[in-house]
Structures are given as C-alpha cells and as structure tokens.
C-alpha cells in the first residue's frame, strides 16, 4: 500500500502529511489529526455523527476516501468555535434547550444544524427537519434539537434577543425550572472524549474473532500463525483466563470468550492486539479454529420441551428464571366474572442502537493495577466480576467509566471489558477496542422478545375480577439481566390496576439467539404493551369508554399491589386525566363515535409527511364537474 502526500486546509490551518490510500477522511481527521469531535457511529453513512464541511458543503466523512480531500478546505466541529473563542449561536442554543443528552450525535447534529442555517438562514421547521434527516439521535426524540435550531435561526436573524440563550434563573428551586446541563458545552463543541476517542502512548488495537455458528463445540484453536504476524503483540483466548471465568448481571454463565463451546452467532472466541487495526484484522484470518456444529434451538417453546438441546449444563430445562406471583383465588375470580377475555401478545427483539458503539481502553499501571476505561453502565459490579476472572485482589482492578454515548441498558453487560483486560495483561501495553456498528448489533444484548398469554375476567359493570398472565421471554444464549427483567415484568405485569385475584408467571428461557438483556423499562414495556392492549380490547367488548374502564379499576391511595405492597399515594388518576385532556379524547366507547374524528389532527399533532413541500406548488381548487 503506497502512502501519498496529502495537502489540505483543516479549520483554517494548512495540513501537509502522508496518508494511506485506504483511509477515509474520518480516519484521517480522528487518527492523524486527533480531532475526535467528529464521531463514527455506523461507518455506513447512516447516522451523521461524522459530518464535516468539505469546501463548504456538509458531507459524511465515513464515506469519503481521504484522497478525495486533496487540496480542499475542511471544517470540523472543532473549527466552528476554535479553542479560546465563544460557542457559536447554534451551539449555545443546543446548550440552552437541553438538546445534548448522551452527546454522541451532537457534534454531527450541530454541524447539520449549522449547514441548514447556512444554506437557508430563513429555513422553516419542516426544512430544518429535512436537512437534519441524515442525522440520528436516540436520546432526545429530536424535539429539543429542532427547538434549538429554531432559536438559533431567530437569534442569528435578530428576531430574538441573544439573551434567550442565557441560563434561566433557577429561582428558589431547580425543580420545575429549565436548568442547563453542566456537560453540554463540552458536547456541543465536540470536546468531550468518549472511550473510542482516547489514545495512550504505545496503545495497541484490538480486533475480535466471533463465532459464525449458533451452537458449536470448539474443537481446537491454533493461534500461532496469528501470533507470528509482524505487528501482532498478542492473541488471547479463554485459555488466558487466570481465574474463575464467568460474568452476568445475575448468573455468571458467560465466559469472557467462548471456552469449549459457542452458543450464539457473534460470540467472541479469540482476540488480537496489534499495532494497528488492519494488522489485527489480518491476524484474525490466521487463527485456525475447528468447530463441530451441534443442534441449536431458536424458539422458546421448543427450548422448554423435553429433549431440546441443552444450552448450559447447569440448566437442564433451559430455564434461566421463573418468577411466579399469586394473589387471591384465581379460580374464584374467573368464576365471578361475567366475561372472560383471552388474547396472546408477541413482542420482538429490539436493538438499543445508541449512537456510540461499544469501545474501551485497558492498561496495567505502575502498581500493576489492571485498569479498564469504558462506557460501562455498571462499573462496580464489573470490577468485582473481573477481579475474580483475572484472579486479582479487588484493589488491583480498576474500572473508569467514560462518557456513555447512549446506553439504555445495553451497556450493563461486561461483554468486552474482560477481553481487553486479558490482552493488556498479556501484552504489557495499553489496548483499545472499538466496535463496528455491525459488531455492536450482532454481539450485544437486545430487548427480550416475549410471548404473552393474557386472560382477564370482568364483571358487566367493568370491574376486573381476575387476571392470569403468562410471559415466556427469549433470554438468548446467556443470562445477562434476564432474571431481573423477568422479576420486573412480573411485578408490573398487571399495570396500575387493582385486581383481587392474580396469577402471574414469567419465564426467561435460554436459546441460541443473541442474548437478551436490560433495556429501558427492564421488562415492563413488554408486559405493559400486553396489559394496555388488553384493557382497550376489554373496554370495547364491554362497550365502555377506555378511560372509564381504567378509572373503574385503577389503584387508589392505599391500594395493595399484587406483590402485597401498600401504596401511599397513587397518581394514575391524574395521569389518566392529563392523557385524556392532551389527546382531546372524545368520550365514549370506541366505535360509537361519529364518522368525523375530532380528536385527530389539530394542535400539537404532527402533520403527515412534508418532505419536499417547500418545492411544491399550491393545489388549485378542484374542477367542478358538470353532470
């Protein structure tokens, strides 16, 4: 690979360096110029975190070979408000509205917003949305971002005083007041360093070899050719674990890397630490692995049957956890009912899709303390587990939490920190691993897919007499948070309703699918989806207004939950009132209202797709046909 001379101007400064032909502009900006405000969220042009200006036009630097940038003017997030100068109006507006949460998408968003207002200083909200369409955010739901761009537009145009960008007074209490985030300036300026932005002298780059099989025995691993490749510092496998292998949020059933068996596609089997990513990738190809595929199971009901492939020896029935809850007398409750409604509900796996793919950097310090820096959502627990795995006293293990570029539960599992620790201990040098988006999707936890069977007994007057709720969740190949998720799903299964007779069973089951784990609501989303859908279906069957049906059954102050907890104050009544008002709900059972839906459309609702509306002509009045 022949290097070439590259000249360009970056943020006003002339640059003259050697570059490699395969580098993308993104790699050059981040790795060679150390301008890490420009992020990589997907590497495939989808997410927008890598947006930079090239000769004044915003482009995605992950899709531009660096050779294309010969002689051009580049402007990155760092160039918008150069060191020592004030933030730009757009950046200040992002700070003001709380538009930056995890912050990982924010440099790209600020760039897109800046571009939008440069292209059209008078852009309306629909055009702003259009022009930010190439940038993805997973925290904000975009509202605060759009609000920021509109404020910035009006301040720049002089229509709003720049004082709107100042902090609001907090008054006597922060509660109920608009308080700006302390960390926002570093995020809107692209200064905050996430784990993948960090570098250390002598740092090695890691690549991970992952299983192509859902269920297979690992017959042999030969790493000698990979180790012999120049530039490779070390190869690590399960054989390098000095202590007791196994991690998980509840049951420690997952090895740092597969030992004698792989249980899902994407499971780590070996890893290489080398001078650069390319060398590490080449070394992966030299690892000789012999697998013997064994029967796999991908369906929870199949997995629970006798004779199904057993995924973990300790759990012969493939059960991770069963949470049963009983209250009252379920038989009696159904016997009292005038109407019994049964329905099944299925949910699908969901990827967290935080904009920051997993990344970490590990090193052994001067006191032999093994240190891992990563966006872990659970560092203390990770520290304790890792100490056991690497057989060190707890004071020789340190976890540092880097800024989390979105987690949503997906970064609670110690999926890669152990591999980094083993490699840095073996190589004696700092090691960094940055996941690709594909790797993040294939190897990390998903929201549990659930199959729910709901049965509800109701009196004609709308009172619920009994509920039986059975949820079977696909935990995938390893336990991770499954136990806790099953617990929460069971606890919250019947929603905020006062039901005298309850029978609840949630099951987390092992399969050879991608492991399921924590995800915002931790199991409640699945059960609430079923419960609230069921409430609507039952209200319709009874001919009751769905709000009314809920009010009849809602818990009130002093209610006792089905886990026998007495509640001091219950807010569901106020929540229902607020939801009813905000949705402009027309009272009455569904299906009996007039043909015109007055609650649809109007204030605070989104118009249908307006893409390209700014180019369209006005529609003329329809032709009057003469009969």
């Amino acid at each position, binding site marked *: *690979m*022949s290097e*070439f001379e590259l000249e360009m101007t970056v943020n006003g400064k002339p640059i003259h360096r050697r570059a490699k*032909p*395969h580098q*993308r502009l993104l790699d050059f900006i981040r790795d060679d110029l150390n301008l890490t405000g420009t992020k990589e969220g997907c*590497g*495939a*042009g*989808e997410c*927008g975190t890598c*947006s930079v200006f090239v000769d004044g*036009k*915003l*482009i*995605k630097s*992950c*899709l*531009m*070979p660096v*050779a*294309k940038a*010969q002689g051009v003017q580049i402007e990155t997030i760092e160039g918008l408000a150069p060191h020592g100068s004030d933030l730009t109006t757009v950046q200040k507006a992002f700070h003001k509205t709380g538009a930056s949460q995890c912050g990982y998408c924010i440099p790209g968003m600020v760039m*897109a917003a800046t*571009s*939008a207002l440069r*292209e059209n200083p008078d852009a309306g909200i629909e055009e702003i949305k*259009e*022009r930010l*369409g*190439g*940038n993805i955010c997973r925290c904000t739901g975009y509202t605060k971002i759009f609000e920021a761009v509109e404020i910035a537009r009006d301040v720049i145009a002089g229509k709003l005083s720049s004082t709107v960008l100042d902090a609001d007074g907090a008054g006597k209490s922060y509660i109920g007041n608009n308080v700006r985030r302390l960390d926002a300036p570093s995020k809107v300026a692209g200064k905050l360093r996430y784990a993948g932005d960090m570098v250390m002298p002598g740092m090695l780059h890691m690549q991970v070899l992952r299983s192509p099989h859902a269920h297979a025995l690992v017959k042999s691993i030969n790493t000698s050719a990979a180790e012999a490749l120049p530039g490779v510092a070390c190869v690590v496998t399960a054989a390098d674990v000095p202590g007791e292998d196994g991690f998980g949020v509840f049951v420690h059933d997952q090895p740092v890397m597969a030992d004698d068996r792989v249980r899902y596609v994407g499971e780590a089997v070996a890893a290489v630490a080398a001078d650069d*990513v*390319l060398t590490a*990738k080449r070394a992966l190809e030299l690892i000789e692995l012999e697998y013997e595929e064994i029967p796999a199971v991908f369906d929870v009901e199949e997995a629970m049957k006798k004779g199904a492939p057993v995924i973990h020896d300790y759990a012969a029935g493939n059960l991770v956890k069963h949470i049963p809850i009983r209250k009252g007398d379920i038989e009696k409750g159904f016997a009292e009912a005038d109407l019994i409604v049964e329905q099944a509900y299925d949910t699908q796996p969901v990827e967290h899709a935080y904009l920051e793919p997993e990344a970490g950097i590990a090193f052994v310090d001067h006191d032999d303390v093994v240190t891992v820096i990563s966006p872990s959502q659970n560092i203390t627990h990770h520290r304790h587990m890792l100490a056991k795995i690497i057989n060190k006293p707890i004071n020789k293990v340190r976890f540092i939490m880097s800024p989390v570029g979105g987690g949503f539960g997906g970064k609670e599992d110690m999926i890669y920190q152990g591999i980094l620790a083993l490699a840095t201990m073996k190589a004696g040098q700092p090691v960094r691993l940055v996941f*690709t988006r*594909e*790797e993040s999707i294939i190897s990390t936890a998903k929201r549990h897919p659930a199959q729910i069977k709901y049965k509800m007994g109701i009196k004609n007057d709308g009172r619920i007499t009994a509920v039986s709720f059975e949820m079977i969740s696909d935990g995938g190949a390893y336990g991770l948070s499954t136990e806790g998720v099953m617990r929460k799903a069971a606890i919250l299964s019947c929603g905020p309703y006062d039901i005298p007779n309850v029978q609840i069973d949630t099951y987390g089951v092992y399969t050879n699918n991608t492991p399921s784990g924590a995800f915002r609501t931790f199991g409640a989303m699945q059960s609430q989806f079923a419960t609230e859908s069921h409430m609507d279906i039952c209200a319709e069957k009874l001919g009751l207004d769905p709000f009314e049906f809920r009010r009849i059954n809602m818990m009130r102050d002093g209610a006792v939950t089905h886990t026998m907890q007495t509640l001091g104050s219950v807010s569901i009544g106020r929540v229902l009132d607020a939801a009813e008002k905000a949705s402009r709900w027309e009272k009455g059972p569904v299906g009996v209202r007039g043909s015109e839906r007055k609650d649809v459309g109007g204030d605070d609702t989104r118009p249908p*797709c307006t*893409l*390209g509306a700014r*180019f*369209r*002509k*006005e*529609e*003329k*009045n*329809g*032709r*009057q*046909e003469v009969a």
Partner: protein
Amino acid sequence: MLTCDKYHMPTSIPEALAIWQDAAEGSRLVAGATDILPWAREGRAGDVNLPAMIDLSRVAELQGYKVANGRVHLGANVVYQDFLTDETLRQHLPCMPFCSIWFADDQIRAQATLVGNLVNASPAADGTPPMLALNAELEIVRLDGKALKRRTIALSDFVKGPGKTDLQPDEIVTAVICDSLPGYGGSFQKVGQRRSLVISSACAVACIKMAEDDETVEDIRLALGGVGPVPVRLDDIEMLLRGKRITADLITQASAMPAGRVASRTRQEYRRTVVKGFIEAAILDALIECGVPLPNAAEVENAHV
C-alpha cells in the same frame, strides 16, 4: 473495511481510461463512493482489498451539464443535490427535485452521483425510474488503441438485472442524456422504513404535460421502481392517458393497472397495494405541479368505492 493498494485521481478522460485499462483485475471506478464504501462491510462484501481505485470526481470532462435540442446532457459527476439546488436543472427535469428530496440526505446527495446510482443497478435505485421516464441514454467511452471510442445505449437496455449492466470491463460512463421537459409537472412517490435515509420498497415517478384546456393530457411519462429486478416504464398506462381528458375514473382505471408488474421476491401483496396508490398520487401530484385544477376531489373519492 475497504482497502486498496493504489488510489488514482485522474483529471482527464484519456488519463482515466489509460489507468482503467491497465488496472489489475478487481480494480474499481469510484465516483461519490457512497455505494462502494458501505458495500465493503460485514454482512455484505466484508473486508475487501482492491488493487486500485480510480476516482473520477476530478475528471474535468465529467463535470456539469448542458441543455440542447430538447435533451439534457448530464456529466457523470452531476450529484443528486444539483437536481435540488440548480434552477435550470429543476426547470428542465421537473421530476428530479422530488426524487432527490427522497434520496438519502443532504450530506450524501452532495457526494452521490446519478451515474453511480444507475451503474450500481439496484432494483431499488431511485434514479432509474425517473431516468427511464425521461428516455435516458448513457454515453460510454473506452480506449481503442490510443483513440477514444464512444457509444450510447438506452438506459432500458443498459440495466439488465440487480447489479447487472451492459458496462464492459474497460468502459467508463461519461454522461446521461435525457429528455428536457420544461413545462411538465413532475412528481415522485417513495415508501420505505422511514422518511430520510431509506431505500425504496417501492417508488414511482410521473411527468405530465397538459394541453391548453388544462384538462387534456398532452403527454405523460410514468415509471416504477423497487417492484421487480429492474425498474419499469409503464407504457400501457401512458397510452391509456395520452390525449385523454383526465377524470377521476380514468385515474382510478390507470392506478389499477400496474399491480401485475410487481415481481419482487418479497412482500408482493404489500407492493401491489402500494403501487396502486402511488400511480394515483404520482398523477395527482404532477397535475398540481402543472398548475391545473384536479379532477373533482369528491369524484376521486367516490371512484374508489
């Protein structure tokens, strides 16, 4: 991850062709790189090392466009954003702004070329249906000894199947030449998983010219994409509508016709339903762009019952 041994940036056609002819087997031409870079990732081609990449974006002859004799000559380096921002192009290619606004996003449109889109020959390519509707031809060049040898080929003959074209190993596409349709109303319909940055599950394009009376269709062009191995021109519907007074009944009749063209491998039923609505919407939207009153709205609604 895409790697290459050499990255060339020729500035003229002869230089580009000479490098291309001598390039080792497996080398690739590059325009905006928006197809080629994502292609070399896990789940698609995986890690790929190319002997050489020959980047055409600095070739002078491929820049810009010319309008002459009722045709628009679009240099191979014309990118999608040009169809949105260039007044002249918007006037002569009235369906292209609507196609472009649905295409990827601001950033990618600044890089992605129309030619790259046509050569990539995805069944879901958004550029192919409009270009079929505009009777596009591709201008192609290769070296014959030292001489430049040029040929043109109709787009309908050029695209042969998913990822397959008539392009020969030593050839470079230099331009797309298509009808210039000022005075036509254009429209573009697209559906995918989300609004921005989405590959079409189905798309449709219409260009309509109305007669003086504002009611008779003087000319109409219709094409569909995403519904089979290659995008299709809907000549039968065009024939039905050309020269007719446009009525709600006629539009309904037309929109029922293309369902039979759906030949995708997946979601056929869905696409059949979508295509029906798309043809109607494409016609109505294009009529609005023509600045003519639409057939009586109530009548359109009734025609559905």
